[in-house]
């Protein structure tokens, strides 16, 4: 089976998920994985979809044109290469220890890039990231939560110190803590 990546974004309203996913059902597709949320009043969908033989990305894009027009959505469908270990419906555990990074402070441009650039330079993989601007319009506070995977051999304390320095330059606070779960 081939996989396609689908993104759809539009003003939030009831019925977007139902309308978009109906197209996949009608084409015999299976939703492998998805993340959907509201970003500043826009409903954003990201999906990886199993596509049966004979159905092309262009067919899905054409079929999605109807709901996209009705709901004023920006839709994109792209064939994606097979990812090693990505099959079987379950996610292969990524290598490395899972840690959580919290960043928060007065909103200003460059926070995400500053932190992400430091992590990339250390070989740290970001596996999940979400951001929110909270607080009133006069004092907006930026909060960013990351799930990261530390490569073998990296010293979390040293990484924490580097993050603290980078955060200070950006005028924000940062914390790094293990996010391992207990198997009960």
């Amino acid at each position, binding site marked *: 089976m081939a996989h396609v990546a689908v993104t759809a974004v539009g003003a939030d309203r009831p019925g977007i998920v139902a309308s978009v996913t109906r197209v996949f059902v009608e084409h015999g597709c299976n939703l492998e994985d998805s993340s959907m949320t509201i970003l500043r009043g826009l409903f954003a969908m990201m999906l990886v979809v199993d596509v049966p033989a004979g159905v092309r990305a262009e067919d899905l894009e054409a079929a999605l044109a109807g709901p996209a027009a009705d709901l004023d959505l920006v839709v994109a469908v792209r064939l994606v290469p097979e990812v090693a270990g990505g099959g079987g419906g*379950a*996610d292969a*555990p*990524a290598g*490395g*220890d*899972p840690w959580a990074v919290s960043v928060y402070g007065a909103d200003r441009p460059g926070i995400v890039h500053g932190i992400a650039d430091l992590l990339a330079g250390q070989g740290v993989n970001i*596996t*999940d990231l*979400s951001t929110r601007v909270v607080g009133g319009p006069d004092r907006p506070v930026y909060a960013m939560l990351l*799930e990261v*995977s530390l490569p073998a051999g990296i010293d979390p304390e040293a990484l924490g110190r580097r993050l603290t320095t980078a955060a200070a330059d950006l005028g924000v606070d940062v914390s790094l803590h293990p*996010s*391992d*779960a*207990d*198997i*009960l």
Partner: protein
Amino acid sequence: MAVRPVLELPDPILKQRSEEVGRVDDAARVLAADLVDTMRATVACVGLAAPQIGVSLRAFVIDVTGHRKARSCHGELVLFDAEIVAAHGPELAREGCLSVPHLTGDVVRASSLVVRGLTVDGVDRVVEVDAFEARAVLHEIDHLDGYLFLDRVSSHEALFRRKVYR
């Protein structure tokens, strides 16, 4: 005494309410030994309930010995027909489960408990547990009632892919 296969989602046994054991007989003691052996077979597993090995009876084992989040610690604790007598203090922490591979979730649970049940000798026992041991007891009793941590995650954003198997 044996390490038994652990059932995984979506096995329907995991979603049933388990039956009371009533009287602790030899069969119940074999079940307890199998629970202990199966729990010990997975490093870092601190608890296991009978439905997870396909037995729909109210029995579980926990052992939080040496765990960094533990305060109270009763060592290897097997209880039949356990019930919560008192519970206090909500606390949030991340849990995984042998029966729900690939996912973990943040679950709010009581941080101190009084729990009562029958020991492997058939004796009525009352134990006070807190912190991580309390979480383990509640997670296992949930199994006996057909609940998984997935039924308890604090919000959809509190569900995560499990990234490490230990």
